[in-house]
Every structure is written in C-alpha cells, then in structure tokens.
C-alpha cells in the first residue's frame, strides 16, 4: 500500500530552537494516525507542518520534505489548494460568527462554488457526514455560535469536510469537550477514516488507543516510536515510550 503522506527528514526551527528533529514518517491512507507525547514535544508542530499552517508563524524555518501522494507540498504546490486537500480541525471549536449554513458554505464558496443548489447539497452532505445533520437541519440559518461545544466541533469537522479534503488533520479535537461529545467525535473519526486519512494529535493516550490504527510517540521534537497502536500500547519497544504510556514519565 502506498502511503498518503510521506515525511522525509523534516527539521523545523523556531528561531534558534530546534523544534522538530529529522522526522521520518509514512502515513497510510484510510487510517487514523495518532500523535502522542508530552506538551511541547512537537506533535502539534508537525501536524501544522502537514498543511503548512506554520507558514503563518514568524521565525519558523523548515527543511526536508513532506509529500502528499508523492508531490512535495513545500515546492510548487499552491498553499490554498494544499489546504483544500488537507483539511484541519482545531483544538478549540472555531466556528465563524455566521450562520451554520454559511459556515459550511464558506469553504466551497472560497473555491469558487456559487450555485445555490450545489451549495445546499454540499451543506447537507457535509453535515450528514459529520453526523450532525439531524441536530442542525432546522437551524441552518441560526448563528453557529449558539451551538454547544460538541456541536460546534462537529460543525467544524463538517466545515472541513465541505471542501472535500483527502486528509483531515485534527489538533486535539476533543480536549475542550465533555466526555459525551468526545465519544461522539471519536465515533465520527472512526467512521470518517473509511473515506479520509486522519492524523490526530491527542493528549489523551486512551483516546489514541481507542481509535487510532497507528501511533507515533514524540519526545523533545523526535519521534521515539511509531507503529501499530496495539503493539505500541501493549509492547512498546522503547523504554521512554513505556514510561510515558504507563504514566511513569519523567
């Protein structure tokens, strides 16, 4: 099976700080890959490098390559098109201050879809895919800011799905949510991996164990261990991984 995303010798510096050290990783399609590790280990930084959100950060320098289906995303690829192909869901739900409908339609409109019928279709399909259509179908014209945290986050997932990405990056998507909403998002992620490749950063190791297929453990900007979630959690090869996942870290 060819990999969806290939990270090759990726180094990232914030000024003088070497935040990611020679990362090599292959991310398989239609799988959930989880990044775990203590705060500041670089997992979110790597995630953001995958759709070039770090471009916005000043003093951030990247070397190496990230390839999406073999195409180098840092050379000769339009950033906006890249972000259309690799969508992102953020830690804190961030619906725009507009209606539910306009939130979902924002992405497609950005990419030039104007037809009302088409947009209606996309909005419904995206909300259905995010398993939130039934809850929201009667309040499409209402402001998205009036939704609960869990609904907002699923709306943000729907918004990301609306531009038909291939890869979905999730940066601690449930850390701001209650357990029930978390559980819904986890189910959703497992459902979505049939059609998308999902890369998820999580602080919650149990979450990684519950839903991911592959897990990568990060420490101080390095990937310590990367492999099948089940074997990483039952028989970690590296002592540091074991210490971290058994809570004996540091």
């Amino acid at each position, binding site marked *: 099976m060819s990999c969806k995303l290939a990270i090759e010798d990726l180094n990232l510096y914030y000024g003088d700080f070497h935040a990611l050290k020679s990362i090599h990783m292959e991310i398989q399609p239609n799988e959930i890959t989880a990044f775990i590790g203590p705060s500041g280990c670089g997992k979110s930084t790597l995630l953001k490098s995958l*759709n070039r*959100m770090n471009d*916005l950060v*000043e003093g951030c320098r990247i070397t190496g390559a990230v390839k999406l289906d073999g195409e180098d995303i840092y050379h000769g690829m339009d950033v*906006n*098109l*890249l*972000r*259309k192909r690799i*969508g*992102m869901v*953020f830690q*804190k739900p*961030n*619906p*725009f*201050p*507009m209606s539910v409908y306009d939130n979902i339609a*924002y*992405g497609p409109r*950005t*990419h030039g879809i104007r037809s009302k019928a088409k947009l209606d279709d996309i909005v419904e399909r995206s909300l259905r895919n995010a398993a939130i259509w039934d809850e929201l179908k009667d309040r499409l014209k*209402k*402001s*998205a*800011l*009036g939704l609960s945290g869990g609904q907002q986050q699923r709306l*943000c997932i729907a*918004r*990301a799905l609306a*531009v038909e990405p291939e890869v979905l990056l999730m940066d601690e998507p449930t850390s701001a949510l209650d357990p029930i909403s978390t559980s819904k998002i986890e189910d959703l992620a497992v459902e979505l991996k049939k059609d998308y490749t999902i890369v998820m950063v999580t602080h919650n190791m149990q979450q990684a164990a519950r839903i991911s297929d592959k897990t990568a453990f990060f420490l101080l900007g390095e990937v310590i261990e990367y492999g099948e979630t089940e074997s990483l959690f039952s028989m970690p090869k590296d002592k540091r991984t074991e210490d971290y996942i058994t809570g004996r870290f540091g």
Partner: protein
Amino acid sequence: MTMERTCKPVAAETINKLTFKDKMRAYKRSPLSLILLLLVCGAALITMLTLLYLIVYILVKGIPYITPDLFSFTYTSDNVSLMPALISTVVMTIIALVIALPLGIGAAIYSVEYAKRGNKLVQLVRITTETLSGIPSIVYGLFGYLCFVTALHWGYSLLAGAFTVAIMILPLIMRTTEEALISVPDSFREGSFGLGAGRLRTVFHIVLPSAVPGILSGVILAIGRVVGESAALMYTAGSVAQMPGQAGGGLFDSVRTLSVHMYVLSSEGLHIDKTYATAVVLLVIVIGINALSSFVAKKITKKQG
C-alpha cells in the same frame, strides 16, 4: 452501595446572603474599606451629577428658544437660523469620513493583517498616529490653513475644512480599527486559512465583519470630534453661515458647522438664547448618532450571534 440520606424539609433560609448587619460588622473590623467605599461611591455620584447638571442646564436654557424660525433655510442677522450650519456639519462629516475611513481602515488592515510583527514601518506609523492624536486641534487648523487654504488656493472652504478634520480623525479611526482587528480571535483566521482561503478573503469575509462593531465605535468617536470641532475649522472652513454651495463655489464655499456657529453666536453676544437652543439641537444630534450606531452595532453582532 449508594449513599442515601433522608432529607427533612427545613425552613428555607438563605444562608449565602450578607445581611446589612453582617456588612456593618465587617466594616467595623476594617474601617479603611468603609472609607474607600464611600470615596468611590462619591466619585461616581459627582461624575453623574456633573453630567446631569450640564445636560439639564443646557436643556432648561435652550428648549424655550427652539422655534421654527431656527430651522429656516436662510440665515439672516435677525434670524440666526442653524439650518445652514446643520447641513454644513452633515456634509463636512460625510466628506471627512469618506476621506478618512478608507485610509484609516486600510492602514489598520495593513498593520494588523499584512505587516510582519515588529515591522519598522508599522512601528513608525503607530508612533506617528499616537503623536497626531495628542496634538491640539488648533495646530491642525493652522496646518490646514497653510496647506489647503493658502498653498492649494482652496481658500476658506468646506473642502479645506473636511480635509483638515479628516487628517485629525485619521489616527483615531486607525487606532480603533487596529484594536478591533486585533481583538478578532486568531482562531477565526486559522479556520479560514485552514479551509484554503487566501488572506484577502479571510480579511474581508471573516475578520472585518467581526471587527465592525469595534470599527463603528471608532467612527462614532470620529463623528463626535468632527461635530464638536471649532478651532480647526475656523481657520480652514471659515465661518460664513450659508448652505454648502450657496455662494456658487460648490465645495469651495466657506461654511460654518454647528460648533463654529455656536462659537460665533456666543462671541457676538447678541443671540445667547439662540446659542443655547442650538446647543440643545447639537446635543440631540450627538445622542442620536450614538444611539443609532449602538443600534447598528447590536444589529450586526446579533446577526453574527
């Protein structure tokens, strides 16, 4: 095992509220806090009373002299109508805003959204605007006089006045717009960029709409300054009490705004009553503008949720 305890209904007594007696006991223990309480209450009271006195004074002095004649379209030395001044004020304000808004908002968008943090040019612009907003308005007046009236040969004119006040409110609009843009959460921008939207679309569809209430409050302040300005305008727009364009020069006619009108009337000392009446009208206009803009701001925020 679940813990269960039978709960006998007791007489419902609120236990988390301080009674007056409790408070007095607390103050007895620390008299300083009582003194401070009295001081801040006093400060609030004095502020409120001063404002109230001012408004009531103006209303009492002015309302009896508001007559239909006051709103006649022509000004004569017998009937010191405020209508020409009112219209001139509106036109002046609109022109000043038309000049200052795009410039101020544009500059703010550049410095917040486009320029890199620590950009030297932006820092320079910020220092300049801060300095400008501290300059007394008479200085603007002199500048306007030298630049627009004399050097550009516009003479005392509505346009020279409008340009002068436009320069005056530019820093204000830029600063408030900057603040409003900065207060838009970065998560909105990230969300937009994350969907593949470019900077232009992000700024105009996500950031600016969210910043409108803030920008609007800047605009209100700016309008307030234009409406209340007198010194700078006397040097640039002159003080001819006529409708804009009445003398045939279009925007190059000299006009007087309400504030200048009041100043002239009171310095002539012939129509003090009418001055108060004019003040009432000015007060009503300012309150009206405030109410309208806060209404608009509320409408916009409501639409956004």
